[in-house]
C-alpha cells in the first residue's frame, strides 16, 4: 500500500471522473474564448446568451453533486436541498443589491429600492456587512451550513430516516418559501432581489463578466468534484456508504452515525450554497420561487436520471434534464411537468442506476460479447 500524490490517487480508478474533468477543462477555456475572441458573425462564435445558459447548467450540476453526496452515498433523500441553493443565492443577491448603491429607482445609496418602497428608513441588522464581498461570500456558505447543522442535528439525533426525513425536508423548504414571500422579512417579497448592476465593480451585462462567471462556474465545479471525490474515497466516504447500506452495523462497530450524517449533510448544504451564489449573478434574479418544493424534487430527478453515487452522473443528469427543460418549456410549455414525471418513472423502473448505470451495463455486455467471440475463435 504505497501512497501516491492525491490527485493521481483518486483519479486513477475513476475513468468517468477523468472524462468529466477533461470536458470541464475544455469548456472552461474554449467557451469564453469562442465568445470573446471570435467575431460575432463567425460560425464558431458562441453568443453570450448561450454562455450564460451553460453557466447556469454548471451551477445546477454543482447542486446535483451536492445532493448526490447525501443521497447517493449516504442514503439521505433530502427533498429540500434547493433551499440551501436558494439561501446561497440570496446571500449573493444581497451583496449585488448593495452594489447597486444610488443607481436604484429611488436613488437611495443605503437602502435597496424595495425597502424604500416599504417606507423603511434604516437597513435591517441582517443586511449589514453585505456591501463587503468577502463577508457575503462567507455568508454564502455559512447560512446554508448553519441551517443544515441545526436541522440535521435535530433530525438525525431523533433518528428520523427514510420517508419521514424526506417529508420534513420538504416542509423545511416550503416554510422558507412562505417566509421569503413576506415583504416584512426584508428580502424583497415575491419579487425577490433583482436589477443587479455589477459585481466587484464589473458590469454584469458585459460579455467579459459573463464569460468570467462561466469560467468560475466551471472552475468551482471542478473543485467541488475533487473535494467530493477526496471525501468519498477516504475512510469517511466508506463509513458514509456503510451507513447507507447497513446503518445498525455501522453503529455497532463504533461509529456515531448521527455525526457522520450531520457532517456530510452540512458540507452538502454548503456546496449547494456556493452553487446558488454562482447561479444568481448569471440569471440576474433570486426570488422565493427557488424555495419551491418542486425545485427540490426536480433536483432529485436529475440525480436519479444521471445515476446515483457517481458524482459525475448527477452532473450529467442536471445538464441533460435542464437542457431538455429549456427546449421543452419553449416548444411545449404545458407538457414539461408530465415529461419530467414520465422520465422519472421510466428511469426508476428501467434504469435504476441512471444513465451512467446503463452505460456501464452496456459496456460490460460488449466486453462479454468480445470475450465470447474471441473464445469461439480460439476454439
Amino acid at each position, binding site marked *: 500500500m504505497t501512497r501516491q500524490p492525491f490527485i493521481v490517487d483518486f483519479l486513477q480508478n475513476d475513468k468517468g471522473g477523468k472524462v468529466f474533468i477533461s470536458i470541464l477543462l475544455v469548456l472552461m477555456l474554449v467557451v469564453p474564448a469562442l465568445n470573446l475572441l471570435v467575431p460575432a458573425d463567425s460560425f464558431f462564435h458562441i453568443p453570450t446568451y448561450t454562455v450564460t445558459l451553460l453557466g447556469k447548467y454548471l451551477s445546477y450540476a454543482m447542486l446535483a453533486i451536492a445532493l448526490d453526496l447525501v443521497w447517493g452515498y449516504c442514503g439521505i433523500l433530502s427533498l429540500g436541498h434547493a433551499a440551501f441553493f436558494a439561501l446561497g443565492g440570496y446571500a449573493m443577491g444581497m451583496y449585488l443589491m448593495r452594489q447597486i448603491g444610488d443607481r436604484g429607482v429611488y436613488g437611495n445609496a443605503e437602502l435597496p429600492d424595495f425597502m424604500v418602497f416599504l417606507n423603511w428608513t434604516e437597513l435591517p441588522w441582517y443586511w449589514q456587512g453585505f456591501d463587503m464581498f468577502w463577508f457575503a461570500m462567507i455568508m454564502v456558505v455559512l447560512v446554508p451550513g448553519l441551517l443544515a447543522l441545526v436541522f440535521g442535528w435535530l433530525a438525525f439525533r431523533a433518528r428520523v430516516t427514510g420517508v419521514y426525513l424526506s417529508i420534513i425536508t420538504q416542509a423545511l423548504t416550503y416554510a422558507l418559501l412562505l417566509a421569503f414571500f413576506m415583504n416584512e422579512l426584508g428580502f424583497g417579497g415575491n419579487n425577490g432581489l433583482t436589477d443587479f448592476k455589477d459585481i466587484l465593480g464589473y458590469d454584469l451585462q458585459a460579455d467579459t463578466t459573463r464569460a468570467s462567471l462561466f469560467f468560475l462556474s466551471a472552475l468551482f465545479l471542478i473543485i467541488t468534484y475533487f473535494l467530493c471525490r477526496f471525501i468519498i474515497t477516504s*475512510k469517511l466516504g466508506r463509513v458514509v456508504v456503510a451507513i447507507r447500506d447497513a446503518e445498525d452495523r455501522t453503529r*455497532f462497530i463504533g461509529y456515531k452515525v448521527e455525526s457522520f450524517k450531520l457532517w456530510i449533510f452540512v458540507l452538502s448544504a454548503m456546496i449547494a450554497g456556493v452553487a446558488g451564489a454562482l447561479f444568481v449573478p448569471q440569471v440576474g434574479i433570486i426570488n422565493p420561487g427557488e424555495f419551491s418544493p418542486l425545485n427540490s424534487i426536480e433536483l432529485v430527478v436529475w440525480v436519479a436520471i444521471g445515476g446515483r453515487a457517481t458524482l459525475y452522473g448527477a452532473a450529467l443528469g442536471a445538464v441533460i434534464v435542464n437542457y431538455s427543460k429549456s427546449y421543452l418549456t419553449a416548444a411545449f410549455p404545458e407538457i414539461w411537468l408530465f415529461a419530467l414525471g414520465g422520465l422519472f418513472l421510466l428511469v426508476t423502473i428501467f434504469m435504476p442506476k441512471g444513465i451512467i448505470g446503463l452505460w456501464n451495463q452496456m459496456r460490460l455486455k460488449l466486453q462479454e460479447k468480445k470475450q465470447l467471440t474471441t473464445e469461439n475463435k480460439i476454439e
Partner: protein
Amino acid sequence: MSGLDNIREMMRRDKVFDFVEQKRLPFTGRRVVIPGEIDATHGPILYLENISVSFDGFKALNDLTLYINDGELRCIIGPNGAGKTTMMDVITGKTRPDSGSAYFGQTMDLTRMSEYEIAHAGIGRKFQKPTIFPQHTIFENLELAMAADKHVWPTLFAKINAEQYERINEVANTIGLTDLLYETAAQLSHGQKQWLEIGMLLMQNPRVLLVDEPVAGMTHQEMDKTAELLKSLAGKHSVVVVEHDMDFVRSIASTVTVLHEGSVLAEGTMDEVQNNPKVIEVYLGE
C-alpha cells in the same frame, strides 16, 4: 435515609470507586465513559439484573438475571422467541430495558450508554441475520470495523499503516477469505458472510463478543472451524454465543444457559441442562 438505604447506597456497583470520585458530565450527571477502564475484578464482566423489556405489553424479557464471567465462553440456548436476541439488544444499547440494570464490568452502566459508546467500551456484536457492508470489499469491511479513532475528522484523514494492513490480512486469513479480499461482500455465500461478520468483530478487538447464531447456513466443516475459532477466542475475550444447533453448542462445551419466556430456566453444563426436567418439558412441549 434509613440504615438499609445507607447500606444499599454503599453496595451500589457503580459506586465501587466512589473514593476516586467519578467524573460526571454537566447537566445530565452521566458518567464519563472511559474506554479501557473496565473493572472485572469481581469475576463477572457482564451483569444483567432483573431486566424486563416489553413490546406492546408482551414481555420479551421478564426479570432476567444473568452474569457472564470474564474470559468465559457461554452458550445461550432457548426456543424461538425466548428473548435471546432481545437480551443482546439490551447489552448493546439497541433496546432500553423497562426496568433492571445492565453493567459492563463494575463501572459502566450500559443502559445509559449509546450504541457507539458501548462498542468503543469493548462490546462487539454479530447480528442474527448476517449484516455486512455489501457494496464494500472484504478488505474494506474489515478496515471499517478495525479498532481506531472513529470520530468524523480523524476518519476523514485516516490512512492504513503497515501494521493495520498486516492485521487485516491476518484476520482475513483466520476467516478464510484471503482469496476474496478485494471482492465485494455482496458476492459471499451465507456462511462466508457469517464469517466476515465474525472477522469484523475480531478487528474491533472487543473485550466481550456477542455472537447471535453464528453457524446458521454453514456446512459441517465450516461449523467445526467456527467452533475452533470461538474456542480459541475465549480466555482473552469473553464470548457469548446464542445458537440453536445443539451439536454445535456441545462441541464448544461450556456453561450453557437456557432462556425461556424472557428469563433463565436453567444453567449448567450441557449434560446437566439436557437432563433438566424443566428444559426437557420446554423443548418437547414445543
